[in-house]
């Protein structure tokens, strides 16, 4: 990894945007990279738009992903695309629930399943993801979320 990877996770409050970006940032952290994760908390808890910027690499400076420089945009709500599409770089990776089978896309673990898809496009070792899921989530949710992650990661 010789350059900074920029990812934006976005959606609506209550959809697990922050949990997903926590797992992503923790996975990058475990891999030994420099990491910055930035979001604006506050009234977003009441169902409004939420976005979280995660940057990792050898050395991360600004905590915010500059518009047009996101390598991937992970959307937990398809209809939020218009609010965040300008952050994605040309030919950047767009990850959204419509890419998942219905069972994964509609469940409570949709956010972790989206990370499973994302994990295919960015070079973080599998082991880092699993450990990150275990670190971020409560014990009773770990196994199911690992399963959702793995299922999405191994989709054809």
């Amino acid at each position: 990894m010789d350059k900074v990877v920029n990812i934006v996770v976005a959606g609506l409050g209550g959809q697990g945007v922050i949990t997903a970006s926590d797992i992503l940032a923790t996975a990058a952290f475990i891999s030994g990279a420099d990491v910055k994760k930035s979001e604006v908390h506050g009234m977003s808890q009441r169902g409004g738009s939420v976005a979280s910027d995660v940057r990792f690499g050898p050395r991360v400076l600004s905590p915010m992903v500059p518009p047009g420089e996101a390598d991937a945009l992970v959307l937990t709500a398809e209809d939020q695309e218009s609010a965040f599409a300008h952050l994605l770089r040309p030919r950047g990776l767009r990850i959204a629930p419509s890419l998942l089978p219905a069972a994964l896309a509609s469940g409570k673990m949709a956010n972790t399943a989206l990370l499973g898809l994302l994990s295919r496009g960015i070079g973080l070792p599998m082991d880092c993801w699993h450990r990150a899921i275990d670190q971020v989530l409560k014990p009773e949710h770990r196994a199911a979320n690992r399963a959702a992650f793995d299922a999405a990661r191994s989709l054809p």
Partner: protein
Amino acid sequence: MAERQLLSGDEAVALAAHRCGVSLASGYPGTPSTEIIEAFAGLGGRAGWAPNEKVAVEVAIGAAFCGARAMATMKHVGLNVAADPLFTVAETGVDGALVIVTCDDPGMASSQNEQDSRRYAIAAAVPMLEPTDAQEAHDLFLEAVRLSERWKVPVLFRMTTRVCHTQGVVVAAAEAPPAPPIVYCRDIPARVMIPANARPAHRRLRAKLAEILAWGEAGTLVREHRRGRRMGVVANGVCVPHALEAEPDASVLQLNLIHPLPIERIRSFAATVDALAVVEEGDPVIEEQLLAAGIRVRRRPEMYRFGEHDVPRVRRLLAGEAIPDPPRPRGKPPQLCNGCPHRTAYDAFKGLQVYAAGDIGCYSLGALPPFEAMDTLVCMGAAIGVGLGMRRVLPDSEARKVVSVLGDSTFVHSGITGIVEMVYNPPPTGHVVVILDNGTTAMTGMQEHPATGRGVAHDLIGRVRLEDICRGCGVQHVEVIDMHSAGASLPAKLAERLACDQTSVLILRRPCLLTVKRLRELEAREAAGCGQEGCCG
């Protein structure tokens, strides 16, 4: 070797405070500062929510007068509330370290104004330090403690949203100064600010500040990132990493000491570059001081006073461009949760077409569609005073439409003096105050407050009762309405109180939906005779 941790700026401050033995932390919730107290308590530190920021600072002052290390935390507007003790504790000085953390919100992600706390450091004549990321938040907090103890002066520790809420890699390797013993030394001339004592105290403070400036000019709180010589940038806070990324060829002078500004260091830096610019969010506080000192610096176009910076914006600023920021697509605005108890109140306000002098909390969303039923929002607690002012100048038929509406946490923060005003100077038509008692400080993330009777860790502590306060003040009619069982009676009840000439307080009680589960678990544990988390399953 200390381990790597992934921490937010707020958590990093809490870690540093804990490592250096801060004995007492007091704060009032406010985005983006709230997590400092929560994380400090989580690490085992002694921390408490105060009713408001003024009390938080006063409590911390008392601890610091005893030689203990103390911290008070708040958002930028909280420092307005705490300004009175701040200005005078600057002059009394302290025995133990006193660090007052104030968190600004450029761009107003979650605030009612965009004020710049750096002005307070200048006005109160106290030193101010500011980190640029989470690692520095940790390291610099330890410096703040050293500085405070060395000069026996309170230190303002400023952060902004993007430092508070950005997680980054933190290694807690910096040595934490060991905490001195807590011993109370009586010193009446230094601590009792009657004019005879305050006159020399003012001179003492200015002398300390001059020494701190000399120390700052020579010290490590200015850092040079030496790159090209064509462009030099002076920056603070998150603008430092923005600038380093935006212009790889520019040399950057990073200021961690914001006040007193190490102006000679900046002057020498300026001499090594062809052109000098300041990158700062908010007011041009650094720029103004450079200009006053006769340092040639490029003037920042006025538009950069507003909103927060990011890398492309800093690039435009450094290119001297004053073109408006590209429009950002608007996301979905927040709304009151479905089933939120506040909704019932706004339905009633709308139905009765009242003028609602409002306040700050989740319930501020009542100003937006579909309700559009809150008329004013100024600052915490203002609902009552503003409502009373409206009542006293409007003709009677209009005055009778005015209600004041505020949340339970806001009421305790600064609504109580409004009740005193209502009893003392009652408008001829009386007045109606509606307290939306959802049993929490929901807006900032469900913190406890004095009327919930629970502490930072949701443990049972002392409790004040809203109805007792209002009755004790002499309000003529005080009524608690259980919104579970009697919510439907609200419109009729409100109409009745508006029609009479009495002073009334209606307390609408029903927990915030997002706290119900937590409350149920806590109460079950307590009923089982055990308040300990993790015990009793």
